[in-house]
C-alpha cells in the first residue's frame, strides 16, 4: 500500500506542480472561466456614482409593484371588506379572500421576496459603502439614511401582512418577521412584532434626522416623518402620530391638493410626501395597481368593489361619482388609478391626505385640538363634495375620520390594517371609540387566517422558522 500511496502522491504532486506551472505561465488562473462582465466588488462599488446606482437599484424594485403601491395593497384590500369576493377569479387572490393562504402561494412568495429584495439591495449598499472611493461623509450618510428608510418601510409592510398586528398581545411578543439589517445569507428567526416595530422606528428616525428636506424625489426627512406618523398611528400611539403628521403638514411646504384625481396620475400631486417615481410608459411604477383595478374597454376588470364599500362610499358628489361605476353585469369598478387617462402614473405612498387623516383622528383620540381635527376632516370632505362636519365630540370626530379614511384610501392597502388597528386599540383600551368583537366579513379581526402564511421560499431556508398557524388551527382563533 505504501507503494500505491507513493504513486498516488507523486501523481498528485506532479499534477499540482504542472497546473501551477501552467497557470503561472499564463499569468491569470488559466482555468478560471467567469461569466462575461463580472467584476470584483471593489470595481462594482468603487465610486460615488456606483453607490448611487446601487441605491437606485433598491428603489427600482419598489417600483415594480410587487409590494407597497401594488400587490401588498391589493391583498390588504382583498383580505378585508372592500372587494367583491364573488367576482375574484384568480385562485391565489381567492385564497387571500377566504383567509386560507398556504405556503405555496405565488402571491405571498412575491410579496415577501420582492419586498425583501428592496431592503436586501439597500443593505448591500450600506455594507459596501466603504468601498466607494471619494464619497463624501455627507453623501455616505445620506445614502445610508435612504437605505434605512427603504428598509424600514418594507419591514413595516411585511410585518403587517405576515404577523398579527401591533397590540395583538399586550407586550407585542407575538412572532413578527425576520429583521434584516445586513446583506447576508445567514438564517434569521422571526423577531417579535415589538422588535420589528422598534427597528422600523430606529431606521426611520435616523432617516428623519439625516435626510435633506428636498432630495430630487428620493426619500426626504419629510418622507421619514410621514412614515413615522403612519407607523405610530398603526401602533395607536396618537401622541407621536400627531406630532409627526403635524410636523410634515405644517413645515414641509407640501400642499393639500384640491384636485382629488391628481393623486394617481402622470403629473403627480403636490401633496405627495414620497412617491414611487414613474418616468414613462416603460418605467411605470403604477403598472401593477392599474392592472389590478383598471377597467377594460368591455367594462371588465380584475377586481371589483364590494357592495358594502360601494354603499359606504355613496355619500358625496364628486369623489364617488368619478371613482365608482357599476358595469353592465352589475360589477362595481373603481376608477381611482390613472384617473387622468394617461397610461402611467406616480404612486404616492405617503401623502398629505393620509397625514391629515392621521393627524385629525389622533387629535380626536387624545382630545387635543379638535378644531384642527375638524379642519383636516373638512378639507377632505369638502374636496369630495361633502358638507362640513361640525360635531366636535371626539368620539363623533373619530367615527367620522374612520368613515372618511375608508372612503378616501380605498384600494390603497389601508383597510385590513385599519380594521386590525381598531381591533387592537379596542383590545388594549387605546381608543375613545372601541369596537368590541370587531369582525371582518363575519370573522374575528385577529383570527389565524387574517395574516398570510409564510411562503415556502422563506420557510425552506430555515428549518427552525415558525410557520403561522393554519386558518383552522384550533390553537389560535380559526377564521370561522
Amino acid at each position, binding site marked *: 500500500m505504501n507503494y*500505491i500511496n507513493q504513486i*498516488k502522491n507523486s*501523481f*498528485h504532486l506532479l*499534477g499540482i506542480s504542472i*497546473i501551477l506551472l*501552467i497557470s503561472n505561465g499564463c499569468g491569470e*488562473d488559466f*482555468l*478560471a*472561466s*467567469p*461569466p*462575461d*462582465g*463580472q*467584476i470584483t*466588488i471593489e470595481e*462594482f462599488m468603487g465610486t460615488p456614482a*456606483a453607490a448611487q*446606482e*446601487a441605491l*437606485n*437599484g*433598491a*428603489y*427600482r424594485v419598489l*417600483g415594480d409593484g410587487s409590494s407597497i403601491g401594488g400587490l401588498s395593497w391589493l391583498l390588504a384590500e382583498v383580505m378585508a371588506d372592500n372587494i367583491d369576493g364573488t367576482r375574484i377569479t384568480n*385562485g391565489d387572490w*381567492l385564497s387571500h379572500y*377566504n383567509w*386560507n393562504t*398556504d*405556503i*405555496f402561494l405565488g402571491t405571498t412568495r412575491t410579496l415577501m*421576496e420582492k419586498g*425583501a*429584495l*428592496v431592503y436586501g*439591495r439597500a443593505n448591500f449598499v450600506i455594507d459596501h459603502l466603504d468601498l466607494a472611493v471619494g464619497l463624501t461623509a455627507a453623501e455616505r450618510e445620506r445614502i445610508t439614511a435612504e437605505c434605512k428608510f427603504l428598509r424600514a418601510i418594507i419591514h413595516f409592510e411585511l410585518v403587517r401582512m405576515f404577523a398579527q398586528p401591533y397590540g395583538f398581545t399586550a407586550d407585542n411578543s407575538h412572532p413578527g*418577521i425576520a429583521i*434584516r439589517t445586513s*446583506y447576508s*445569507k445567514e438564517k*434569521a428567526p422571526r423577531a417579535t412584532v415589538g422588535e420589528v416595530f422598534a427597528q422600523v422606528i430606529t431606521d426611520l428616525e435616523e432617516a428623519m434626522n439625516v435626510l435633506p428636506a428636498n432630495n*430630487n424625489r428620493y426619500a426626504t426627512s419629510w418622507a421619514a416623518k410621514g412614515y413615522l406618523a403612519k407607523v405610530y398611528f398603526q401602533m395607536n400611539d396618537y401622541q407621536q402620530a400627531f406630532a409627526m403628521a403635524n410636523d410634515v403638514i405644517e413645515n414641509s411646504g407640501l400642499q393639500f391638493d384640491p384636485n382629488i384625481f391628481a393623486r394617481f396620475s402622470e403629473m403627480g400631486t403636490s401633496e405627495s410626501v414620497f412617491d414611487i*417615481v414613474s*418616468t414613462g410608459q*416603460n*418605467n411605470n411604477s403604477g403598472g401593477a395597481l392599474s392592472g389590478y383595478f383598471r377597467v377594460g374597454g368591455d367594462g371588465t376588470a380584475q377586481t371589483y368593489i364590494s357592495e358594502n364599500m360601494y354603499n359606504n362610499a355613496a355619500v358625496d358628489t364628486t369623489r364617488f361619482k368619478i371613482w365608482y361605476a357599476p358595469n353592465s353585469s352589475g360589477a362595481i369598478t373603481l376608477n381611482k388609478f390613472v384617473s387622468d387617462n394617461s397610461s402611467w402614473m406616480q404612486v404616492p405612498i405617503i401623502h398629505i391626505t393620509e397625514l391629515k387623516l392621521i393627524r385629525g383622528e389622533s387629535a380626536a383620540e387624545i382630545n387635543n385640538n379638535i378644531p384642527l381635527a375638524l379642519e383636516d376632516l373638512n378639507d377632505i370632505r369638502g374636496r369630495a363634495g361633502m358638507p362640513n362636519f361640525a360635531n366636535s365630540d371626539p368620539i363623533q370626530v373619530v367615527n367620522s375620520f374612520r368613515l372618511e379614511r375608508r372612503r378616501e384610501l380605498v384600494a390603497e392597502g389601508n383597510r385590513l390594517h385599519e380594521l386590525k388597528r381598531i381591533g387592537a386599540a379596542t383590545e388594549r383600551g387605546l381608543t375613545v371609540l372601541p369596537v368590541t368583537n370587531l369582525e371582518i366579513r363575519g370573522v374575528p379581526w385577529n383570527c389565524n387566517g387574517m395574516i398570510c402564511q409564510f411562503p415556502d*421560499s*422563506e*420557510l*425552506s*431556508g*430555515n*428549518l427552525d422558522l415558525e*410557520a403561522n398557524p393554519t386558518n*383552522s*388551527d384550533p390553537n389560535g382563533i380559526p377564521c370561522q
Partner: protein
Amino acid sequence: MKLPVQQLIWCLLSIMLCLQAFAQGTVKGKVIDQDNFEVIGGTVLIEGTERGAATDMNGEFTILNVPAGTHTVVVSYIGYEDARKQVTVGEGGTATIDFKLGENTELLNEVVVVGYGTQRKRDVVGSISKVESKELLDVVGGSFENVLQGKVAGAQITQSSGIAGAGSMVRLRGVSTISSGGEPLYVVDGIPITQDNFLTGSSNGQNNNPLSSLNPNDIESVEVLKDASAAAIYGSRGANGVILITTKRGQSGAKPTFNFSTRWGLSQPANRVEFLDSEEWLQIRQEAWENDGNVGRAPLPGVLADNGYTYESIEGINTDWIDEVIQTGFKQEYNLSMNQGGKKLSSYIGGSYSDAQSYLVGNSYKRASLRGNIDYRFSEKFTSSISTSITRGLNNRIPQAWAGGLGTAQTSALPIYPIMDTDSTYFNLYGNPVAQRELTSNKTREWRSINNVSLTYSPIKRLALNVTGSYDYMNIGDYFFEDAVWTDNQNIAKGFTSKVHNWSTYGTATYDVKMPNPDHTFKAMIGTEYQRSFQNGTNEEYQGLTDHLFRNPEQQMTYDTLRYETYGIVNSSRFFSLFGRLNYSYKDKFLAQAVYRSDASSKFGPKRRVGGFPSVGLGYILSEEPFLKESNTINFLKIKASWGKTGNADIPSNEQYHDRLYGDRIGPNDYYNNEPIRFERKLENPYLQWEVVTTYDGGIEIGLFEDRITAAFSYYYKKTTEAVIQNRLQASTGIEDLFFWENVASLENKGFEIELTTRNLVKKFKWKTDLNLARNTNKILSVASATPDALAGGFGDTRVVVGEPIGVNYLIPFSHIDAETGAPVYLDQDGNETFIYDVVNNRRTTGDIFPKVTGGITNTFNYKNVDLSFLWTFSIGGTIYDDAAKRSLGVVTDWNMQKGVFDRWREPGDDATYPKLTMDMTNWGGNSNFWQNNHSLWLYDATYARLKNITIGYTKKIKAENSPIKSYRIFVNSTNLWTITKYPGWDPEISRDRDNAQERNVGGVGVTYLTPPQERTFNLGVNFTFQ
C-alpha cells in the same frame, strides 16, 4: 484421378519453394466457421513468433518464411473461440492446415474497452458491462441508450415518453447526487461528449436529446463502467458511471464489404386511458354542482357561455380530443455502410437516414448521418486514425406535451367543446390542441459533428505513445412559427440557436513491462488531457415571414425585427487532467490495478481547483489454481474487489460566481427616476467543488459446465460526501437568487447486481437465457440544515428527507373516505384521522419513487436460420404519483376526467375509491386552490413488467461465389407489446424531462403530469451484406 495431379503440383511447388527458402517453410490453409462459411479477416499467428497473416475473402491464408519445425498455429476471430493446431513445417516445405472455428461461448475472453485502452474481460477487476452492436438495432430511428434498457445490470434506464427522439433518464447504481447532474459521462471513441438535454433550457417535456444524433448502426460496442476501479480513470467526472461508445472501424484484411439495411415501423401509444364523453362529463359536473348545495343546471364552462353556447346548442357535440391528436405513426430507416481493410488503409463508412413519426399527430424525428472512420498505418511503428461524423436531426415537435397536444386533449379540451366554431374558425383558440397544432409549428434542427484524429507511435517494442485531438460541435436551433390567426396580428417566426463547442486533447503513453520472471507482468499507462467547452448562440424574432426562419435565412433581415440578440459564452468549462493506470498480474491469476487521476477544472471554485481520484482493484482467478483446474463443473472462477474515489463535476459552471448587474447588463427599462441602477443578484461560493463518491465493490464471476452457465455477482457500497445541494436561502435575506450551491450533504447507495447467462439448449435447437437484475437502496445521510421543501423534486411533491431514500413522496397521507359524508379523511402528524388538509404540518413521507429491483430477461431461440428473442424488462417497487389526478380524478373543474371517477362516493355507506364529487376544494378540507390537493390518494405502486422487445428473424448466408449478396436477414419485431402493471394511468414507465438537475434526481421518475406514454411499435427490417 485427381489426386496424383494434385500431389504432382504440390511436389513441384515444394521443390520450387525449397530452392528459394533458407530453412524456412510456408503454412497455408483455410478457416471456416461452424456453418462452413469462410471466415474473412481472421488473424492467424504462429505462436511465439511475429509471423502471421489475415484470412482473405475466401477464408484462406498463407504465412511465408515460417522457420522449419513444429509450431502451434492460433486462429482468432471476434466472436469465435481461438483455435489452435500443431503443424510441422519442413525446410522449404509447405504445410496445409485448415481450421473450423467454434462460436465463442466463453464471454470472459472478450476484450472490453476501458478508459484510454482495452483489457481482456478476464483481467478486469472493476465492474464493466458490455453491450454489443447487434443488440442496439431493434428500434427504428431511435436513440441508442433507450435500447440498453434491461440489458445492463444496475442501469436504471427510463425512457422519457413516446415523443419522437425522446431520450432516457439513465442512472447507474442509483442516484448518488442531490442537486448535481446524475447522468453518466458519455465518451465516444475516447472523447467525452456533450450530452446535456437541457443546453437550451427546458422545452416542456421534449428537449433535444443529443444522444439521438449518434446512429446506432455506427456503434460497435457500448461499455458501461460502474465502479470506482473502472471509472476512476475519468476522475471528477466518473462518479455517475461512464458509458463508453466505440464506433465501427474497418476490419483488417477485409475486402470492401457493404451492408445495407432498411426498417419500417408503425407507432401507437403503448396504452390508452379512457376519458369521459360529453354526456358523462356533464353528468359528473352536475353531480358535483348539486353536491355543493346548488340547484338547477350547473353553468356551462365560461368559454362556452362567452361564445354564446347554451346547453341546447352543445347537444350533439362529443369531441374525442385524444383521437384528434393521436395517429398511427410511420417510421422508416435506411442504412448503408462499407467496411474495408488493407495493409495500410482500412476504413468504415456509414450513412443513414431515418424518419420516425410518433403516435402524436405532427410529431416526428428525422435524422441523416454520415460517418467515416479511417485508419492508416504508415509503418509498423506509426499508425494514425481519423474519425469524423456529421448528423442532421430535424425534430418536428408538437405543442408542449401538457400545454397542448395530448395533455390538452385529456384536460382543458372538453368533449363538449367543438373543434370549429359555427363560423368556421377554431373554437377556444388557445385551449384547442388542434388549432394549436395547425397554427403553430415548432421544429428543432440540430447539426452535430464529432471528430477526432489520433496518432500512435511505438518508438520501441511494448511502448506506445498516443496523441488524440477531438472536436465535438453541436448546433441546436429551436424554431417557432406562429400563424397570424394565432398571434392575432402578423405571422411570427422565432429562432433560438445554440452552438456548443467541445475541444479535447489527450496524450497517453502505454508500456508493457517485460519482467525477467515471466510470472510477473506489468502494464503502465500515463496520460494527460485538456478539455474546453462552451456555448454561444442567437435569439431572434421577426414578424411577417411565411415560414420558419431557417427555411429562408437570407431574407429574414428584410422582415420586421422584433428581437435580435446574440449571447456570448455561457456554460464555459475547462478541464486539465493527469492520469495513470498500473496493471499487474502474477501467473495470470492474481490481478491488481491502481488508477489515479488528478483533475483541475474551471467548474470548481478558486479555493478548490484541483481534485485527486485514486482507485485500487484486486482480482484472483481461482480457476487457474490446480484444485479447480481439473474441475468438470467450474471452468472459470474469479473473485474481485475494488475501492476508489470518483468525483461528480456536473455542477453548473457559474454557481461559484457572484452575479452583479450594471451598465449594459441591465435591461433597457431598468432605471429609476431616470437614473441608472446596479445590483448584485447572486452570492458567490469560491469553495464550490466536485462531489466525492467513495465506492467499495466486490464481485464473483463464474463459468460452469464449459460456460453453459456464466454468472457474475457484485455487491457495492457507494458513499457520496461533499454532495452539492442547491440550498435555499430565506426569502427574507433579500438576496435575489435564493439558491445557494454548496457541498454540504452526504448520501449512500448500496446494492447488488446479478448477471446470469444460461445456454439451456445448444444442439440444433438453441436456447439461451440472459438475466440481469439489480437492487439498490439509497439513503440520505445529511443535508446540513436544508428543509425538505428546499430540496424539492419540482411538481409532484417529491422531496429529500434525511434518513429516507432520495425522492420520497412528501404528501399528506390519505386514509380513507368517510362512509357517512364521502369526505376524504387524512392523517395528521400524529397519525390521527382528520378532515383538515394541512399542508404546513401534515405532509410526510408516503412513498419512494425509485424501484427496489430493476432488471431484464432475454430468451433467445435459434433453429437453423430462424431466431426468436423476447426481452422482458421489469421494475419492482417504487411509486407513481399522478400529479394531474387531483383534477382528472379529483375535484371537478373545467378539465376532462378519467372514466375511473365514476367510482366515487354517492351516498352514506358507499365504499368508493374517490370522495364525494365537489367543485370546491374546501369541501375536501383544503383551501380553495384546487392545485393544493396533493395527498396519497393519487399515489400508486409502480411495479411493472414489460415485454420490451420481441423479435423473430431469418438469416441466410449465401455461399455461391458469384452472388454479390453474401448474406441477408429479414426480421419483424415489436416493442412495448405488453405491459403488466396495476397502475391505472397511461404508462408505469415515466421519467419527466426537467431542466433542473435536482428535479431530475429527486422527481425524475415516478411522477407524471400528463406525460405521454411510451410508444408501441411494430417493425419490419431487412439487412443485406454484399461485396
